[in-house]
């Protein structure tokens, strides 16, 4: 990719700032290490605590603190000296608060240096700052925009934790709230002419519900589609690739479909939306009797496209209704105390078939969906047949038991009568 003037400028900027700050960085690292080694004095914390001037949101669980990099590791200075003027002097390497536009380079002093970073985590990435300047946030910051997010906006300043720590602002469960801080701010977003309802839409979406309500960290959250440090709105061409990272089969089927070949603009969001993606239903294809069918947004009822959708809908419904019936019969079989393992297996197979059909619709090829439907109907009917046999067997057992009991009772009665007869005989013989 050809580098733009802006990219060159950013690279130069990082390099210059890094060179200027490198001696401080190394000194800070050294001091941080020393402070960790001695593990005794940290005058920064002692004084700031006494003066009740601790930074907002300060946490002892911060990953830097835990790794032995204390205040001076970032801000410089001499944490072993109680004299404020000396410990916070330029001579002692004191940097103080970085300017907002310098924060990426400030963090990059360590995070862009693999020799240093690998001492903590050998496989850690060190391209965050580079990526950041490729993002919309980074580009705007480079242009002097002070409203955009920099490192501390997402990671916090003094409570930075690894992304797999549930307390972290970048933990999957917390990402939407972290992005929301700015992106739900109407006043701020209006300045850029972008909407500010993404969080609300996401929270009401299938992904948002799974993440925020069910705490399922496997679902997509903001950074899964937009990226992390290089966050940017995905363009139409890349949308199906983004969705395809999780929904791989759907993406492949769609890409190889006639729909994708004929219409450039079509991508996942055309039918499913973006932030407010809802759980898809079969009704989206029901062009025959559902005016809300998604296909009717482009097609008109009865045209080729609508008919294709409706054919696929009918095929899915054929399997789905048999699947529901088989499940009802399975429950009856289970509650009757009969063997249900084989029925259950067939029902799982039917369910699998339905999932495959609902994936295959992305090919827009009715023959593929129909072939799966024929297969699914056969399996579902087998499940129903097995369930019927079990239910029949349940009744047979009771009938069989009834007949056996009658025979046994007759036998017992005969024995009882014989006992009585014997008793009479004994009485008479006396």
């Amino acid at each position, binding site marked *: 990719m050809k580098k733009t003037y802006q990219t060159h400028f950013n690279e130069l900027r990082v390099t210059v700032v890094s060179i200027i700050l490198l001696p401080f960085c190394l000194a800070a690292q050294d001091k941080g290490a020393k402070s960790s080694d001695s593990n005794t004095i940290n005058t920064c914390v002692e004084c700031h605590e006494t003066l009740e001037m601790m930074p907002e949101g300060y946490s002892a669980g911060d990953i830097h603190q835990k790794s032995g990099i204390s205040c001076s590791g970032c801000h410089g200075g001499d944490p072993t000296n109680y004299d404020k003027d000396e410990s916070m002097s330029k001579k002692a390497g004191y940097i103080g608060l970085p300017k907002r536009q310098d924060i990426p380079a400030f963090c990059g002093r360590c995070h862009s240096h693999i020799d240093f970073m690998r001492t903590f985590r050998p496989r850690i990435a060190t391209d965050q700052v580079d990526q950041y300047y490729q993002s919309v946030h980074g580009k705007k910051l480079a242009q002097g925009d002070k409203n955009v997010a920099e490192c501390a906006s997402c990671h916090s300043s003094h409570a930075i934790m690894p992304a797999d720590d549930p307390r972290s602002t970048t933990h999957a469960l917390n990402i939407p709230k972290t992005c929301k801080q700015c992106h739900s701010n109407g006043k701020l977003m209006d300045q850029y002419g972008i909407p500010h309802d993404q969080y609300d839409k996401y929270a009401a979406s299938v992904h948002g519900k799974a993440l925020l309500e069910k705490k399922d960290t496997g679902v997509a959250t903001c950074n899964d589609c937009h990226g992390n440090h290089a966050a940017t709105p995905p363009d139409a061409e890349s949308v199906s690739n983004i969705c395809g990272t999780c929904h791989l089969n759907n993406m492949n089927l769609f890409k190889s479909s006639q729909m994708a070949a004929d219409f450039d603009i079509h991508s996942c969001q055309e039918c499913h939306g973006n932030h407010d993606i809802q759980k898809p239903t079969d009704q989206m294809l029901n062009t025959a009797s559902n005016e809300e069918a998604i296909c009717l947004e482009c097609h008109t009822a009865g045209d080729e496209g609508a008919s294709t959708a409706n054919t696929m809908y009918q095929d899915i419904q054929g399997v789905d209704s048999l699947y529901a019936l088989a499940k009802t019969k399975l429950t009856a079989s289970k509650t009757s*105390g009969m*063997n249900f*393992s*084989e029925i259950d297996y067939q029902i799982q197979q039917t369910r699998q078939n339905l999932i495959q059909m609902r994936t295959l619709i992305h090919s827009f090829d009715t023959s593929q969906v129909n072939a799966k439907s024929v297969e699914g109907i056969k399996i579902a009917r087998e499940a129903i047949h097995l369930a019927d046999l079990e239910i029949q067997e349940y009744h047979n*057992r*009771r009938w069989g*038991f009834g007949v*056996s*009991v009658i025979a*046994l*009772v007759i*036998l*017992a009665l005969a*024995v*009882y009568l*014989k*006992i009585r007869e*014997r008793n009479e005989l*004994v009485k008479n013989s006396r």
Partner: protein
Amino acid sequence: MSSFFDSKVFNWLDERLDLAPVKELVNHKKVPVHHHTVWYYMGGVTLFLFLIQVFSGILLLMYYRPGENSAYESLQFITSKVYFGWLIRNVHAWSANLMVFFAFIHMFSVFFTRAYKKPRELTWVTGFLLLVLAMGFGFSGYLLPWNELAFFATKVGTDIAGVVPFIGEKIKIILRGGDDVTGATLSRFFGIHVAILPAITTIILGIHLLFVLRQGMSEPEVFEELPEKKKKYIHFFPDFVLRDALLWLNVLIVVLALAVFFPWDLGLKADPLASAPVGIRPEWYFMFMFQSLKFLPPHILFFEGETLGVLFFGAVGALWMLIPFVKFRKEAVSNAKILTYFGLGSLIFILGMTIFGYLV
């Protein structure tokens, strides 16, 4: 029956085998009739249920395949594919439980009517051994379906055996066929269940029945003290046998009803790597011991609580087996009283702990 004894077949056999004692037994064996006659039937019911076990067990053997990867599957096959397999499996499981239940009733009825006293001391000892064997059948059979609950219950059960001082660890390894409950344990338990225990049981049961036939029914002290004229008897054959048959038929109906209406769940297949499921409990007849051990503190004086508990049950079991020979007092009357209190205490303890085990 007299017509059979006059028949050619009987004469033919008699000439060769001298069946006079059999004829004597059938014609003259009598059973006393009194308020406690009902207890005479308990041993017969236990024997009947044992016969059901043998019959249904042999049928199950036709399809059961021991092994980590085949036991559970073969049970599934038996209950779902084999004609009447479900019935045979459930009859086997239910009659096993009822057999132990009636064996307990039989034992306590013999204890409280003091039927174990001279000359029936050895009948009592063999009877007690038969109960222990029945519990061994239960313990070994419980694992055979190789389901989750059985797997972990066996793990806990064999762990308890392991706390016996000096030999416990060895017993545990011998029972398990290794350090852990594995497929080797299953093979071992299968061998114990279908070969070793049946062989020993056949011998001891034979001796037990021989003693009963030889000594006849025990007469309670109250009955013994009655004047001869007031003593009532019925013929063993056919009167007692007919009553036995009537009871056996009723028990058979109950077993069938339980098998049809309350089938035993096969559960989930055992997974040695899975964590133990909630609610692991042994079979009901081990519950009183299991629950008592749970109550014990980790240490009692210098001993481990569980070890002391296992030793206590072993000692009480041995004492119980030797009850006919135990003399707490010289006077027979006070000795009998102490024994009755001991029996009552044991019964209340067993019932209490069992009920408690199911409630908590």
